[in-house]
């Protein structure tokens, strides 16, 4: 390897930021100076020694709320990406391997989802299911799985006719067995890269839904919902800016990690990008 991970400053920064947020998410109740839901301070007080990020319109400590927001956003983003990855990989794998009408139906449904801008479809799904954090997660999964399905399908299509897959069938492996033992390892790398790149997107979508009132409901300390509160109190910049910065750092860090992963796992793209 000419460019090991420790020589990639952006990847390192990304890892450090995500690592920090993970620690915060785990230990938030211990680190946070106050209860994120307690309405006991002066309302809309600016950042100070006592309240680093100030207080919001209900007199809650914004710093504590931002910290505990990590406990909601990070685990949910990871769970929903795993769900989208699993659903998409299974649908794409089956579609690519068996072809025919299975492939046609699966890919037309994927096209249908692709035809909408992600946030619009997620909005519609979340609105139809009712404003609730759980439904927002489902909505994001609904808009995220097709990219995995397409990726896995294309990988399966190219691997399906490979000699070693034919050889495996000649030795008595069934279709599903071939799919899981011979083709799955080929798909794992690219799918993980897509997931790492996509997780920032998922955070953004989830916060977006909460921002629009379709995700987390008050008084939950969720970053998107907190930014929404900030827009109600525009002159008191600290209410919206700190949760916004939290979203920004998490999304950016995940993207850095995804980029680095892609470069490491797929030397061809890395070279192609460098040659541009």
């Amino acid at each position, binding site marked *: 390897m000419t460019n090991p991970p420790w020589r990639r400053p952006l990847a390192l920064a990304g890892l450090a930021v995500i690592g920090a947020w993970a620690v915060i998410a785990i230990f938030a109740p211990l680190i946070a100076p106050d209860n994120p839901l307690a309405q006991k301070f002066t309302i809309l007080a600016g950042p100070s020694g006592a309240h680093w990020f100030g207080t919001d319109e209900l007199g809650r400590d914004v710093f504590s709320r931002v910290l505990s927001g990590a406990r909601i956003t990070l685990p949910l983003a990871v769970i929903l990406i795993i769900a989208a990855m699993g659903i998409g990989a299974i649908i794409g794998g089956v579609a690519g391997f068996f072809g025919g009408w299975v492939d046609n139906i699966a890919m037309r449904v994927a096209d249908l989802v692709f035809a909408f801008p992600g946030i619009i479809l997620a909005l519609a799904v979340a609105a139809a299911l009712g404003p609730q954090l759980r439904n927002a997660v489902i909505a994001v999964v609904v808009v995220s799985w097709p990219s995995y399905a397409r990726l896995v399908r294309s990988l399966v299509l190219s691997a399906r006719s490979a000699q070693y897959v034919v050889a495996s069938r*000649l030795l008595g492996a069934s279709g599903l067995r071939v799919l899981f033992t011979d083709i799955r390892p080929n798909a794992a790398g690219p799918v993980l890269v897509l997931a790492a790149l996509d997780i920032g997107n998922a955070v953004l979508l989830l916060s977006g839904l909460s921002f629009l009132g379709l995700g987390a409901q008050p008084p939950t300390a969720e970053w998107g919902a907190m930014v929404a509160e900030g827009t109600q109190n525009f002159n008191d910049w600290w209410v919206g800016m700190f949760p916004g910065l939290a979203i920004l750092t998490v999304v950016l860090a995940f993207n850095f990690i995804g980029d680095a992963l892609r470069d490491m796992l797929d030397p061809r793209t890395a070279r192609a990008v460098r040659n541009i």
Partner: protein
Amino acid sequence: MDELLRVEHLSVALPTRSGYHKAVDDLSFGVDAGEIMGIAGESGSGKTITALSLFGLLPPGARVTGSIRLDGTDLTALSGKQLRDVRGRQIAMVSQDPATALHPILPVGTQLTEHMRHHLGIDKTEARSRAAGLLKTVRIPDPERALRAYPGQFSGGMRQRIAIAVALAAEPRLLVADEPTTALDVTVQAGILRLLDRLCRERGMAVIVITHDLGVMSATASRLAVMYSGRLAEAGPTSELLTRPRHPYTRGLLDALPHPEAGPGMGTAPLVPIGGSPPSLGRVPDGCPFHPRCPYAEATCATARPEPVPVAAGHLLACPPDPLRVSA
């Protein structure tokens, strides 16, 4: 010896844009246990389709008639599940190109033990030790280390040995080797052929070697079948076929081979190519498919389809004019 495989009147029709065309046409042959049989012919003569039909893994839409009996069981009548139990366990295949026949990102050990465990129902440790034994059998040095290595870490000849070990893992009774030496250089070829020969003798396993290279056959196969355009042209003991070919096509294949072993002077005889090219699927001429290219063709060859008939003990010939008749 007991006959292990009996193929009777096998025809395989493949779908093309202009309808179904026979890639294999009324082919019959048998293989004894412990015997190496060769199937020779140019590209497109139906060798590989014949092999794939033994496994029931023809391209989608292919129509098969005739019977393929392995120890009395008709393989063409088996269900998908039953066929999967036959594949690998009873008959196994070694494919042409060792560079692509092994999974590039799975360790050799996994590929060796995977279907061995499936077919034989043995646990991981036992499979592992059997796999090491197999690698030893095919003469891979340091088997324990080879099990953990990836295919990319081996040379072409080694990979072909590993591919043979993979095919042998579930102890099949019939091994089909489709052009096992085509992608290898000559010295490595000889090693692979000796290996096949040894396995055949030690395990009493039958081997079908498919090739276009008659030179490969001369040292290994005891019997040889020459196919042309999906049909049997000539079949018989290898030594007889190679020294006294009766079919003009067999003769043509031999004349097209260099004979460096014949010594100085004799080796300088010019190579004689067979004029023309083999008919493509769907444009097979009436009568004998070889007649447009045959220097001995007679008027009847263009109309009457020659059937293989015995001309000597164990020697079948599908050429009624028999222009190369050996005078007794």
